[in-house]
């Protein structure tokens, strides 16, 4: 009885209870995430190799980044990728979610199919797409020639088209992901609100834009933030589709560095060039960029995100 009183007391609830709620997460955060984050931050000011440890060099890594033309290209590649991927990706997932948010017969099968790419190993799927998009022998260009009679683009072979090709494949790969999140959000829209609007004479489209989208906005906000963070960190797909073939020895992020994005560059610097400090500096430039954008999003959200 006394315990119940204690637990129910407003003081307890206001000052202690929240921390109990977040305790497990806090432990994990401090032990497994913050330690490595701080370590890697300090690393960006060092010249480090795993065999001998680190030597402090202050801002040298960052200074080098400012002058490194290849890094500039890497930075802009990443930015370009995100700018292309974000709108196309979010909108396509939303459309998919709307298309499958109903009780049509067999809709479950479609939902499962759309989710397939998300759960597949990127290594396998990336290889298949690289194969399908082969400029000379791939199925896609073969179909383009058969149907439209023109020679298809060079996809991953040309520096002009490679990055966009990766955007398209990545959308194919991930649209099921945000679709599921949007679906959960759509399911949360109270049916009576929609019914009431229908009674008032609002058509499907009007209901969507006036009721569904605003109610969906917290979910949309979430999807946008996550998409930006993930898009800046893309690695596996780019590596699989642009890495030289077995035994070749060549550049990743090709052709001619056109698809060399930040995490590829970080990976190469850390594990191939033995320059982990330099890689860490790049990671923190990435972090600054993403944090900046995210901060802006959070500030801006008051204008369009509706919470209860």
């Amino acid at each position, binding site marked *: 009885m006394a315990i119940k009183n204690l637990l129910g007391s407003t003081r307890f609830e206001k000052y202690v209870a929240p921390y109990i709620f977040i305790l497990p997460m806090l432990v994990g955060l401090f032990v497994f995430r913050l330690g490595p984050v701080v370590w890697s931050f300090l690393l960006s000011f060092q010249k480090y190799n795993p065999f001998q440890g680190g030597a402090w060099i202050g801002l040298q890594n960052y200074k080098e980044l400012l002058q490194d033309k290849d890094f500039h290209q890497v930075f802009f590649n990443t930015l370009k990728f995100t700018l292309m991927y974000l709108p196309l990706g979010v909108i396509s997932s939303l459309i998919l979610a709307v298309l499958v948010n109903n009780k049509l017969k067999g809709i479950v099968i479609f939902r499962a199919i759309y989710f397939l790419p998300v759960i597949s190993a990127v290594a396998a799927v990336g290889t298949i797409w690289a*194969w399908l998009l*082969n400029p000379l022998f791939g199925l896609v260009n073969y179909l383009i020639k058969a149907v439209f009679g023109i020679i298809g683009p*060079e996809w991953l072979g040309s*520096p002009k088209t490679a990055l966009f090709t990766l955007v398209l494949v990545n959308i194919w790969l991930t649209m099921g992901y945000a679709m599921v999140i949007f679906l959960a959000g759509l399911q949360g829209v109270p049916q009576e609100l929609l019914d009431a609007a229908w009674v008032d004479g609002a058509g499907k489209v009007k209901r969507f834009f006036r009721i569904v989208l605003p109610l969906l906005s917290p979910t949309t906000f979430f999807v946008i933030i996550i998409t930006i963070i993930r898009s800046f960190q893309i690695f596996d797909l780019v590596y699989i589709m642009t890495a*030289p073939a077995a035994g*070749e*020895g060549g550049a990743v992020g090709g*052709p001619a560095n056109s698809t060399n994005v930040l995490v590829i560059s970080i990976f190469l610097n850390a594990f*191939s*060039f033995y320059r982990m400090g330099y890689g860490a500096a790049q990671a923190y430039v990435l972090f600054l960029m993403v944090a900046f954008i995210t901060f802006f999003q959070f500030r801006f959200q008051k204008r369009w995100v509706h919470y209860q």
Partner: protein
Amino acid sequence: MKRLVFVALLALCAGLLFAGGSQGETAMAEKIELRYMMWDPQIIEKEQALAQKFHELNPNVSITVEGIAYAQFWEKIQAMAAAKTLPDVFWMAVDRVKDNQRMGALLDLQPYVDKLDKSNYFESVFNVLRAPNANGDMYAFPYAWVVCIFYYNMRLFDEAGLQYPPEKWTWDEMRNLAIKLTKDIDGDGNADQWGYWVKGRYTHTWSYVYNNGAQMVSDDFKRCLLDEGKGKEAMKFLADLVIKDKVSPTPAQTKGVSTFFTTGKIAMCTEGSWRIDTYRKSLADPFGITYLPLGPGSGGKYDSFGWPDSYAISAYTKHPDESWAWTEYMAGPGRPVDSVLGGKVSIWKKSALSDAWAEKNMLPENKDLVLKAGALIGKNVTFAPGWPEWSDQIAASDFDKILLGEGDFDTVMAEMTEKIDKVLARY
């Protein structure tokens, strides 16, 4: 009295037993466990079987074999190094020997190597593993090696009524053959068959630099020499084959097909000897091999570009002698002959010169050319420090730019050299 004598005798026997046997016993009693890491999990059972055999010969040493997928191998090695738990023996890539030695990760193997009977091995290969430069000690030990050779598609030559390439020939002769063998079969204005395939990768580009009497990097590893003299001449020759003479497909066209030669649309190419295996399986046409053509700057001297697969021992292993024993075993007598076949050559001469390796019933007919080319493996400058950065990433990307027509030859070569110099300056 009797009892005393008895006890004394017993003590004496015991003393003899333990004293006499103790020399051998102490060494035998210490149980040693070695950790061995390799990057081909698919053959892990075979390696474990060899470890077992070694254990039978050396009962006090047991070896745990760990296999990590090739692409993740270096990440794991570095994580283990940071935690000071490097394996005792591990596979080493030739292009990382100098970097790893510089960072103090590897054990100096020269004292052990000096005690070997060199006539059992292909010594020309040893030099590639010296660090920090050509006069240094060996920091890794080879167990198999490969060399770059020239391949040609016999069917395409027969169809064109041309003689196969000879063993000693020049760039001009090669170029002429390539032009004759490039055809537009269906008349749509695009070539369907190419005389040659230029690949902007180390096996290819650096082979040509060497065979023009040049090198990519100066002997002291300070300067990139590709933007001048014979080095630049070699790069121009290759670039022109694609851009001017158009006897080779561009990288955009060959994107996604790693061994374009297997399509049967290429008459000639330069590749590593390990591709003999690939071509036997995937090329429908008969093929032959020969030496690369010599460039005008070579002065008639042939310089083979070859390198080994090797083992390295951790610099802070607790059991260097046993680690070396395992390495020597796997590089020589312990390794079964059939584990190194096809275009790879065992460092152990007996295995390489055996009938099993000769594979007389398989293509190519003159497989022993690989052995001869191996003897001509030249300079050690090849794998200068920072190779993954300057050769794999910078040189390959920039040369592709030229081949794709995205940049003018002179400008890009100058930029590339500047970038490479910056990388080299760090060492």
